[in-house]
């Protein structure tokens, strides 16, 4: 019982606080947004430390995994961020010379994530938890590679057919998608440092079920709320059937515009 209370205080409540922090980012008041950021940092900090503070909870293995893959993910995202904002954008933040460095960081991050899986080494973050392969790594890696493969393939097709003349982007998305698919196939036919082929095969099957379940759950939820909104929206008069706005409504609109644009009030 004491372990459960400890897990609730050091893992579950921080996770709930972090979720509350994310929800508060959707509020308009800056004070609440800042408070939400504080909640998010504190909640995430406690959650990520839970593999040290409550190692007896099975769920704390997930925090150990996130800490282990954090360096690789940081390399990936910092690299892509630098590569994007050193290009020709109105908000260029980096010298164009850093573009190659950004792409190199992305490749190194991806390579580190894979290297951790294929080689067990003292200088790499460990994917072991209590002497065994972290069970959440068996969930994360196949899901990550499978979603990379699916989402990038989807993106490649959409960008090619609906994104105008962006064939380079479409081709590169397709290449990374095929690369992810090849890594999945490699895992099915070759043992690595943490998983055998049969373990990986089962994990991949469960990841497939997981992703299809997530897509189905999200799809049904979106459908239900779309229908609810459609039910209310169809009752509203069309834009051409509306009477002209009253003075009160015009004053209200002017007030909202002034509030958002600022500037002096004209006579």
């Amino acid at each position, binding site marked *: 019982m004491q372990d459960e209370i400890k897990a609730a205080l050091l893992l579950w409540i921080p*996770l709930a606080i972090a979720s509350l922090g994310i929800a508060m980012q959707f509020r308009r008041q800056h004070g609440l947004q800042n408070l939400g950021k504080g909640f998010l940092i504190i909640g995430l900090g406690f959650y990520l430390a839970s593999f040290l503070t409550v190692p007896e909870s099975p769920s704390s293995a*997930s925090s150990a995994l996130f800490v282990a893959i954090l360096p690789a993910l940081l390399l*990936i*995202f910092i690299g*892509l961020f630098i*590569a*994007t*904002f050193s*290009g*020709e954008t109105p908000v260029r933040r980096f010298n*164009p010379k850093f*573009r190659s460095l*950004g792409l190199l960081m992305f490749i190194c991050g991806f390579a580190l994530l894979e290297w951790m899986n294929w080689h067990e080494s003292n200088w790499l973050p460990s994917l072991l938890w209590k002497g065994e392969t972290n069970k959440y790594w068996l*969930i*994360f890696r196949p*899901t*990550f590679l499978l*979603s*990379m493969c*699916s*989402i*990038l393939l*989807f*993106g490649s*097709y*959409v*960008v090619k057919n*609906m*994104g105008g003349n*962006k064939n*380079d*982007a479409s081709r*590169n*998305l397709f290449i*990374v998608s095929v690369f992810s*698919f090849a890594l*999945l196939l490699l895992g*099915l036919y070759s043992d690595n440092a943490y998983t055998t082929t049969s373990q990986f095969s*089962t994990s*991949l*099957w*469960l990841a*497939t*079920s*997981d*992703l*299809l*379940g997530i897509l*189905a*759950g*999200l799809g*049904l*939820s*979106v459908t*239900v*709320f779309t229908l*609810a*909104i459609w039910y*209310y929206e169809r009752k*509203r008069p069309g834009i051409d059937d509306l009477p002209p706005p009253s003075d009160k409504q015009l004053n209200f609109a002017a007030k909202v515009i002034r509030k958002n644009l600022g500037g002096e009030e004209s006579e």
Partner: protein
Amino acid sequence: MNETPKQRVLVIAGFLLVLPSLVLGIVSGSSDADASRGFARFANAFLTTYTLASMFFIINMFRYSKSRREPNAPWISMTYAAALGILASVLLTSQGGLLLEDNSGSRAQILTNVVHFLVTGSAAIVSVAIMIFIVFVNITSRKQSKD
């Protein structure tokens, strides 16, 4: 692009989104035990995502009701979502028992589902973010090469 090809592109894109999962699912899952575990995982992922997404939408329906002056909107949509959720739960549990996977009780299973969703959700979000960044990296490089 007119409406028909746009819709066709979206349908094909939707199919491509699930194509790798279907291919690898057929290649990797074979035994009856795998099928049973796969179904339990699908059902748990479905119910967890449906519940969390519905909670998010219900909170947003309160905002919608305020801006559109429809005070009943959140309650009606909540009723729809709850009714459909109960129906889906009954249908899924009638097919595969209590969907407990490796846990001894439903409370443990719910907590496992939340952490599981956190891990799988993170993996999916990382993939989406990588896709968006790759597109932007290519767009900005294309403009640069014209100079």
